């Protein structure tokens, strides 16, 4: 290697190192910016009203008033709302993931008449925005089937395949599993369902967890449907409870922020548990198209 080339390489290395340091500084800066709103909400939840309105505002509360949370819980029935939310989310996640796996398996592995037609219908429904069917479904659930002030209209759709997107995701994942595994099992005398339960399902566990997480997030955020199907405050979910609480306590910001932080908590915990799968699965949705 010539001296000049060696020098060039060294200067490139040095340049790379400076760039990496600059990148790291930028990442830290933007990460702080991204996390800042959450911190601001959290620190407000621990402050007295006097401290909130002080100028200039403090970044860290002087006294950490955890009693704000006690006060909030007197009105904001967090545990009740959490329980109600779970009554919707848990069956939906289980049923949605299971039925999406069944359908994904059929599309990925089995041969049958009408496959391409059903698949086209399925993909087509992915492009259909959810709000389009809201009114007829509302009429169907409440008038046709008599479910008023009930969780069923929110849960039952997940017994029907868990959404085209999730079926698609599972199908793509199953297709990436080598067929030799199935064939070996067939030779050993395993039926299609045996193959699904004892070979496919263990292999696609990450995809199933991701589907469950997507259903979780979808329900978590779906204020509109919860608003139209749930009426009595006994049955409020976290989303409804928080909306209602904010209406009641418009000016008491520290209690409102305490309720907000309480509502954040389950999502954060759920995310920390499933983070690895989350990233894996979202990556998958982006690359398998």
């Amino acid at each position: 290697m010539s001296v000049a080339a060696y020098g060039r390489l060294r200067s490139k290395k040095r340049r790379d190192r400076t760039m990496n340091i600059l990148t790291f500084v930028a990442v830290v800066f933007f990460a702080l910016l991204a996390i800042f709103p959450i911190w601001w909400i959290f620190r407000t939840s621990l402050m007295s009203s006097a401290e909130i309105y002080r100028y200039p505002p403090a970044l860290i509360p002087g006294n950490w008033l955890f009693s704000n949370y006690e006060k909030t819980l007197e009105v904001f029935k967090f545990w009740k709302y959490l329980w109600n939310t779970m009554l919707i989310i848990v069956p939906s996640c289980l049923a949605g993931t299971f039925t999406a796996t069944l359908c994904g398996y059929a599309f990925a592995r089995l041969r049958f008449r009408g496959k391409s037609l059903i698949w086209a219908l399925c993909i087509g429904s992915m492009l259909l925005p959810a709000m389009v069917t809201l009114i007829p479904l509302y009429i169907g659930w409440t008038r046709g089937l008599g479910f008023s002030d009930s969780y069923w209209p929110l849960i039952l759709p997940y017994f029907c395949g868990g959404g085209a997107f999730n079926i698609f995701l599972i199908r793509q994942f199953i297709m990436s599993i080598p067929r030799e595994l199935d064939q070996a099992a067939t030779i050993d005398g395993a039926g299609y369902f045996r193959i699904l339960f004892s070979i496919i399902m263990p292999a696609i566990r990450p995809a199933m967890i991701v589907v469950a997480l997507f259903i979780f997030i979808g329900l978590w955020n779906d204020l509109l449907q919860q608003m139209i199907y749930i009426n009595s405050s006994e049955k409020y979910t976290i989303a409804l409870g928080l909306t209602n609480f904010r209406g009641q306590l418009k000016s008491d910001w520290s209690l409102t922020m305490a309720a907000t932080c309480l509502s954040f908590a389950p999502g954060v915990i759920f995310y920390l548990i499933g983070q690895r799968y989350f990233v894996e699965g979202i990556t998958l949705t982006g690359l398998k198209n």
Partner: protein
Amino acid sequence: MEAVNKLRKRRSRIYSSEARVAYICLIPAFVGLIFLTYLPLLGVLGISLTNWTGLKSPEFIGIDNYIKIFTTDPYIKDSIIATIYFAFLSVAGSMIYSLFIALLLNRKIPARGFFRAVFYVPYVLPAVAIYVGWSWLYEGNFGFFNYLLSELGLNKILFIADSSYVIPSLSLISVWLAGNLIVIFLAGLQNVPGVYHEAAEMDGANGWQRFRHITLPCMTPIIFYNLLLSLIANLQVVTPALALTNGGPGNSSRFLTYLMYDQAFVNYRIGYASATTVIIFVILAVFTLVLFKTSNLWIYNEGGDDK
């Protein structure tokens, strides 16, 4: 001959049992597609031709609802403007923000997983809590943003309580929520073949040139996917209006889906709201179609012939 027939029979038996399993697996999806997707789609078209209010039995009135919407409806124009304005700012903002952050995270930095989690976390928080929380940051007197403005010697702004700032303010929140786009972009960046970069670097291409001529073309399919995802989601925006603004101030955040909600579930004009739904559907379909039709102009196909 007999052997062949026997074999054929056996194969068709296997085939039919396979089909039977498939149909059993597909029953849930089939029920869902018919009763939760395609029949309701026809239903909304049908109801939109009636004057149903939910009380009396509906009467067929032809396309009267549509005529009314386009001629006398006081909200539809503001609503379309608000929705498109919001979607434009949110989509543009979140695409740029998430691609930028993904590019940063794609370099060799310590604790990358941790930072990825930090940028992703807003996406898993319940939307209502996000909006309620941000409404405090946007508060007109003591909110954090007004503190910043006053430090900079600027006048206070009411943000979500001001009709000219409400849309940009809500868009900023939806940009902040774009953590899933970052994760998808990051995955795409990690799939850009390293050899291209090395070769270009040998030829003396600088960082910007490499981004412009290697990274960006390789990323176009992912950019398309993210664009589609974020456009469809943002055009259906409704939660901020439900949780915070009630469509206000004035009509400045009366998004189309909120307009439909208001007509159907607050005023019980179900026939009329269905017509609004159909119009929203058409708007969404046009945007999606345009995106798909123009996609082959700018999506780079690795196997294809490069101009």
